[in-house]
């Protein structure tokens, strides 16, 4: 939460990032300290409006005296901590995390930052060989915990599978899923409190799922799309965008983004309208918005058809 409290001033904590003294407020994380220092720190499962789950481990840093590397996104700065963000160990771990993800999931729609990190850390997913053939629809959802098909090792296992398209609002392309837990947090305690989706299965077969993999229309989903808003790889995508991408008409260079206020109710969430060729193609909400912190409800996110209907009737 970014609500502004009028509070007694926080105590300050002195830490050292790559040999440089940095002072941060008590309670700040090492990631905050790195960012204050302008140190580029990759993150995948971290988002300002969600509780840190520290599962992707791409943000790890070396803290003097610690046996293992620590996740910068969730570890609180403690007085006197000496942190290295660019040691050999840190670079290797970050490279490997990116390499593991790139070799097992489709990161092609992940942000430009992610693409840059993949390059700068030298992640090379081809080291694991050719990807194994995609899974059939439902196969990963049927996997039983503690068992898996024997592997010959000649191909690299992936999470690739057909897209789940079972409702009019959005599609779930779990071939792109890096299991960052963000959508689960957004659907649950951190925003929506609907709990339509959760982690199912375990190990490499762990996946985001409704109960028994029932379709979204049968699940508790209310189509708020907050899961879409937080997904770092576009595994979750509005149907409007999905169709245009399928048809080859999606073109971000021709899109403008207009920030406005949702017209539906008195909460007044901020909306970013993504417009291409004078048509709204997607609605998002700015993370830094004090109203909804990037989260919306079904009306704000998907209820924009009436705008274009009027445009065509005129």
């Amino acid at each position: 939460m970014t609500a502004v409290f009028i509070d007694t001033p926080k105590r300050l904590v002195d830490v050292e990032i790559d040999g440089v003294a940095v002072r941060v407020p008590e309670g700040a994380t090492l990631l905050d300290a790195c960012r204050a220092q302008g140190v580029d720190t990759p993150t995948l499962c971290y988002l300002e409006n969600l509780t840190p789950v520290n599962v992707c481990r791409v943000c790890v840093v070396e803290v003097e005296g610690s046996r293992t590397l620590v996740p910068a996104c969730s570890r609180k700065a403690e007085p006197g901590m000496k942190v290295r963000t660019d040691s050999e160990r840190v670079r290797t771990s970050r490279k490997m995390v990116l390499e593991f993800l790139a070799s097992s999931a489709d990161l092609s729609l992940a942000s430009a930052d992610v693409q840059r990190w993949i390059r700068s850390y030298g992640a090379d997913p081809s080291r694991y060989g050719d990807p194994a053939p995609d899974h059939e629809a439902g196969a990963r959802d049927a996997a039983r915990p503690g068992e898996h098909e024997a592997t010959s090792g000649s191909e690299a296992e992936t999470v690739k599978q057909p897209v789940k398209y079972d409702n009019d609002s959005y599609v779930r392309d779990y071939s792109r899923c890096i299991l960052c837990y963000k959508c689960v947090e957004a659907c649950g305690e951190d925003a929506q409190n609907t709990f339509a989706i959760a982690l199912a299965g375990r190990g490499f077969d762990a996946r985001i799922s409704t109960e028994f993999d029932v379709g979204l229309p049968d699940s508790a989903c209310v189509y708020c799309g907050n899961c879409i808003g937080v997904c770092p790889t576009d595994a979750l995508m509005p149907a409007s965008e999905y169709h245009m991408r399928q048809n080859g008409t999606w073109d971000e260079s021709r899109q403008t983004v207009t920030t406005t206020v949702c017209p539906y109710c008195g909460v007044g969430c901020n909306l970013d309208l993504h417009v291409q060729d004078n048509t709204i193609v997607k609605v998002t909400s700015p993370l830094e918005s004090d109203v909804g912190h990037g989260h919306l409800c079904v009306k704000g996110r998907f209820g924009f058809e009436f705008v274009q209907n009027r445009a065509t009737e005129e």
Partner: protein
Amino acid sequence: MDLRLSATVPATAEEREAVDGVLGPPESRWDGGQRTAADAHVAFGGHAARSRRHLLIPVLHAVQERVGWISPGALDYACERLTVPPAEAYGVASFYAMFRTTPSPRTVVHVCDDVACRANGAEALCEQMSKRFGDTPEGAEAARPGSANGSSANGSSANGSSANGTGVISGVTWQRSPCLGQCDRGSAALLQRAGTDRPRIALAPADPDRIRQALTDGLQPMPEPLVPGAGAAIRSDDNKDGAGGPPAPGGSAAPAPRLLARIGTVDPASLASYRAVGGYEMLRRALALGPQGVLREVRDAKLLGRGGAAFPTAVKWEAVAGNPVRPHYVVCNADESEPGTFKDRVLMEHDPYALVEALTIMGYACGAEQGYIYIRGEYPVAEARLAHAIAEARARGFLGDAVAGGGFSFDIEIRRGAGAYIAGEETALINSLEGKRAEPRNKPPFPATHGLFGKPTAVNNVETLLSVLEILRIGGPAYARIGTENSSGTRLWCLCGHVAAPGLYEHEFGATLREVIDTAGGVRDGRPLRAVLLGGAAGAFVGPDGLDMPLTFEAARAAGVTLGSGVVLVLDDTADVPELLRRITQFFRDESCGQCVPCRVGTVRQEELFARLARGEPRGDVATELKLFDDIVSVTRDASICGLGQTAASAVASAAKLGLIPGAAES
């Protein structure tokens, strides 16, 4: 919370009965019962129902044992009763290997093909199983889909029919299993028999005939408690009809057993028998010493945890005892699932009252009124004996409101695991106790401050707790004088694999690896030793050159190995090491919780790599593979959340160092 339920077929009467058997009957329509007039005016459920979330796993066990799988209707009913969102409950059910979420034969036979059983013909047994139970399973109905064709790394698939809620397929299926904690008995199986009065049977040694017998006429599967070995100071375990020879006598100079003193001499079903040999005297002593006095003895004893991490027990207890937040909890970690480990099972099966007494003392010292024993689901005999011991202790005033008349109140509940090695990691265990997926928590904060239900919690291994009884018996300083300066006391070693007399052996710290193996009669049939897997799958290989290493924490650290859970898996020159390494990598892939990337994907890439090496078809050459492996080792060790990922590559990496990987030496 409004629950949206999705099952198209509601829970059957049988399923509701199973759930209600754990939770009691529902109060109203609000939690799944009949609608009453009052329902329109008063809301039940809410916080009261959600506070019972921790009962989700016991409820799932009840349904699984009754009908053989968790159907959508049964899950919905459990969710209604506990106000848990179905997606979350499905996430829990699909995490644990003993639960099935698709229609399944009522009988599932799990056959161990893990590291130790491998040395005792597990492959041959699996082949026989395919023949006997594979394509024409006995007692199966025609509708049974799938068959045991060995197509998946962990055995047969009984899938194939859709989860349409139409019910259960009766019949038998079998599958391969990771270590079942019976490694000293030659070969091991676990039978899940839903809908019977003995829904879980541990069978060892196992062969198709005995399995069939157990399925049809309820063969008494476990050997009866040991008769004491003839004056043996160091006693072998109950491998009566196992592959090994007779228990090795400990020789006249051998010290008296401490942890194993009562094994085989006390009736595990009789409190009187336990008390006749001094049982519950240590609790009296503890009450006389006071909580601070107990903490002092444990500190003076320099006791280090026996669960694998070797953490000072006193530090943990003092942190919990001194925490002003209430209540406090104490937990005994009896999830023992490290491949090759069976010590805690032996202790619990043969000396259950001792664990109950020790946990009571722990609760007293830590200021807790509630203790839990989290025991792996594959240990039905140990669980039953513990349950009996707890009930009897309660009846005799050793548990309850005024323990031993001593004015403190304490009780113990058993919670059963459901097939997940990771649930033995202490923060994952705590999540599992709370009714969640056994995903480890990030540390800090540690359980001593934020443990079970967010309260101060101490977690200890079974062997650690039994050591506390010995500490109180002889006094902390005296205990510290046993063993070495930095490794005090005695330790149990799980001798298994190609060893003459597999079993559980107790030694003072400082005995060398060679001595420990020699006490068990040395390598089976006098064959040459190839290597020892020390500490389990998360441990390390030691070559014949390392046999003179004293088994102490400090010597292990210096040698870059670990004592782990006390596994001494002996491998002779016939061992198929590359295949063994591949099996170890398969284990970690299967048991990773999947939470963090280094472990979730790293264990897959590691298994693929060792599958290539086992087939003798490296990508590029072996040197290229080992370079890739180096990177995998780095990221899993450095960046994983918990000990599983951090040690997933340890054993295979140590094998590489010892030159046990073919082709590696040349490169």
